[in-house]
């Protein structure tokens, strides 16, 4: 039996299904590696927020963080892990399924508005 859109929504990967984390993972999925400054610029997050989300993504095993010194400054480089890349692709596929089932559900459950007068 097919799951309802609501069940599918509940089963989405919560590590990815958050606006800030989705933005970070989307950026990382379009490149090999990006540094902290770029991620901050492209997502519009504050330093603290970005740092917190990156820590959560690292704990979840979706990204790998590397720190190195460039011109006496610390540079933080972030990349999708081996688990992270398929996780985001799986998330897109789940969203595609969800869209289709939501459209079907709407078609079958739409109650016409009662006519006035």
């Amino acid at each position: 039996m097919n799951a309802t859109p609501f069940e599918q929504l509940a089963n989405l990967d919560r590590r990815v299904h958050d606006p800030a984390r989705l933005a970070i993972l989307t950026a990382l999925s379009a490149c090999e590696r990006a540094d902290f400054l770029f991620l901050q610029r492209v997502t519009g997050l504050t330093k603290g927020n970005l740092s917190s989300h990156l820590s959560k993504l690292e704990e979840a095993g979706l990204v790998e963080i590397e720190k190195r010194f460039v011109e006496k400054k610390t540079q933080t480089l972030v990349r999708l892990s081996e688990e992270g890349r398929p996780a985001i692709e799986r998330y897109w596929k789940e969203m595609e399924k969800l869209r289709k089932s939501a459209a079907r559900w709407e078609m079958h459950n739409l109650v016409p508005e009662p006519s006035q007068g």
Partner: protein
Amino acid sequence: MENRDLDRIRFVTRHFHDLQGLRSLVPIGLITLSAGALSAGRGATSPVLLSLQAVSFLAAVLLIAGAGRYYRSTFGEVEAPLDRPVTAPYALSIFSPAGSAPWLGSSPQAIPPSRRLPVILMLAPAAFAVFQFLFRPPWIKLNSVYIYLGFESLVPMSPSAFKAFSTPLIYALCGSLFLGLWLLRQRRLSQSHHLALGALLLGLAALPVAAPLWVALLLCGSALVLAGFLDHRQLVRALGRQQ
């Protein structure tokens, strides 16, 4: 987080290096402008041309030397993606997955970086040949065989033949470059300035009256500088927010 936000993030990240106009197109345009001024002022010592030549060349050198550092320190660094297929589709509005989100389409396949240069290099002669064939065919058809007439007149490379050949070739090369950039950047609306400039220059290449070489160089140089600034502006607008 809307479709367009995720789309913007994906596009800017994937084309981060391409959009650094001050590092690529603007210096190339300034060097072309300098070459145009040199070509226009051959044999003459016009102070305007000399200063245009010197200023453009100097500005190009300064940009080549400093623009990379500016982009790194202002916007950070991105390593280009490996040549792997891109399968990620656009997202729905994630706050209303069952509601008003209009559509979910597959993301256009981006051409891997290693294939970009060959694509542009192949596009230029192809576009040149097509335009020559359509508007000023250097061939004649004799007993179902095409004979190329242009070659004999070009072998001695008389000044008139050189002028007739070089000016449309420069327009075609530059126009093809713009057209190639527009194609490689997924034919997006935000990149339509490349399409407009490409169409304009390819149209000039097809004109039956060849302009002097320096005019072509100045026009192409100006177009490159303009396109570079527009790319730079797009990057700044896309990454401008810093909290």
